């Protein structure tokens, strides 16, 4: 399915707040930033046990809490796997959210938040159970 890719820039999520989205909008991904830093960040790693190249999203700045990885680009961090597409190539993941450890990120194995999934707890790490065709979209839940 070929559809025009529309890049959108979202406003900063800003300070602590409860923000209700009228309708969760478009599916294009914000590009990953190649690190796993920030007070709230979700990251995929190319290798197991949080090693190799990293693709990270700072969830406090301009992030809406869900991504379809068709548009996420390549792993940008230094190390093994740098330059490889993020979609379907992650081996492990990290969700850091200090002081807010109750949520999780659900990593779906198909686009459109469908199919089976793997959960990564907040303030936690996980080796994904498959290392190929395993991360097509994700949804931040808390």
């Amino acid at each position: 399915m070929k559809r025009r890719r529309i890049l959108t820039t979202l406003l900063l999520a800003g300070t602590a707040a409860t923000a209700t989205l009228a309708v969760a909008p478009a599916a294009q991904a914000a590009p990953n930033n190649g690190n796993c830093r920030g007070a709230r960040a979700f990251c995929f790693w190319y290798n197991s046990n949080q090693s190799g190249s990293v693709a990270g999203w700072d969830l406090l700045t301009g992030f809406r809490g869900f991504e379809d990885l068709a548009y996420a680009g390549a792993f940008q961090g230094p190390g093994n796997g740098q330059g490889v597409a993020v979609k379907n190539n992650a081996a492990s993941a990290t969700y850091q959210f200090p002081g807010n450890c109750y949520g999780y990120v659900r990593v779906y194995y198909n686009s459109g938040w469908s199919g089976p999934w793997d959960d990564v707890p907040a303030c936690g790490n996980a080796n994904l159970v498959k290392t190929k065709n395993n991360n097509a979209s994700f949804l931040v839940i808390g």
Partner: protein
Amino acid sequence: MNTPRLTAPLAAVATCFLLLASCSTNSGTTTGTAPASTRGTPSGPAGTSADGTKTAPDPADDPTVISLPLDPYFLPPADNARLHTALDRLVADCLRSAGVRPPAPATAPATVLGRYERRYGLTSAFGARTTGYHLPAHPDPTQVPLSSDQLNALTGPQGCQESAARRITGTTSYPGDAYLVRSVNQESFDQSTKTPEVVAAVAAWSRCMKQAGHDYATPLQTGPWPSEQPTDEERTTALTDVACKQQTRLVRIWNEAEAAIQRTLIQQNTTAFDNVLAERRRMLSEADTVLAEGTASGPGRSAAFG
């Protein structure tokens, strides 16, 4: 396992459009908690009782209600809450000992999609009619703001969160579902896509969609849609998708096939699955120990920072 009936699929789709409320009884907020009678226990054809007589429509045919034998092995929300209460206590004690005021505890997030809501593709007629393949509106939970002192004391290998996690989970990570459970969750799905029943049902669904002018090989190829907001075309496609699933009984057929596979995988790994439950009991016991310790001295100490 039934073969999907494909008599006049378009007529059924049209009927579903006209009587959409009757095509699905749920609003897309299922959490995977089906009645016990439908929990991963394949039964007879819809509308047929055990003695073969016709009955009312079977609730198991509601495509938004899905359950699987693996369900008891996922960490239950109530148990997770106990673990988090203990983790919060450990973190607070650790911060106080470092002279840092603990932040307010985080609260459990609201569910956005049910555990199995899009496992076999979109199934909620309400969701299809309102937001199509886009996600439903959902709040980002209130974030607990942190001072730099709190942030520094919480994080890192020597941080309070990691030490709390080590005590409860034995790892550097906060609790989550066991690797074995997550593995079978994926493996059963992969195997199910290759069963003759699912292959036939998916093909029937694809034909139903094709007859309505939508060309998809499987229900997992329908999203995402890239527009900023759901479009009429998207909603129409999504409604046809849901109606075709109902017409072909795709979700129930797929769910039953996957349930059978999970039962086999669980039986083949009885010891490992028992260990998952044993490890959960160990974590809960440790959490109870932490909370019992905290009861004696907690209120007095927290008052010092109140």
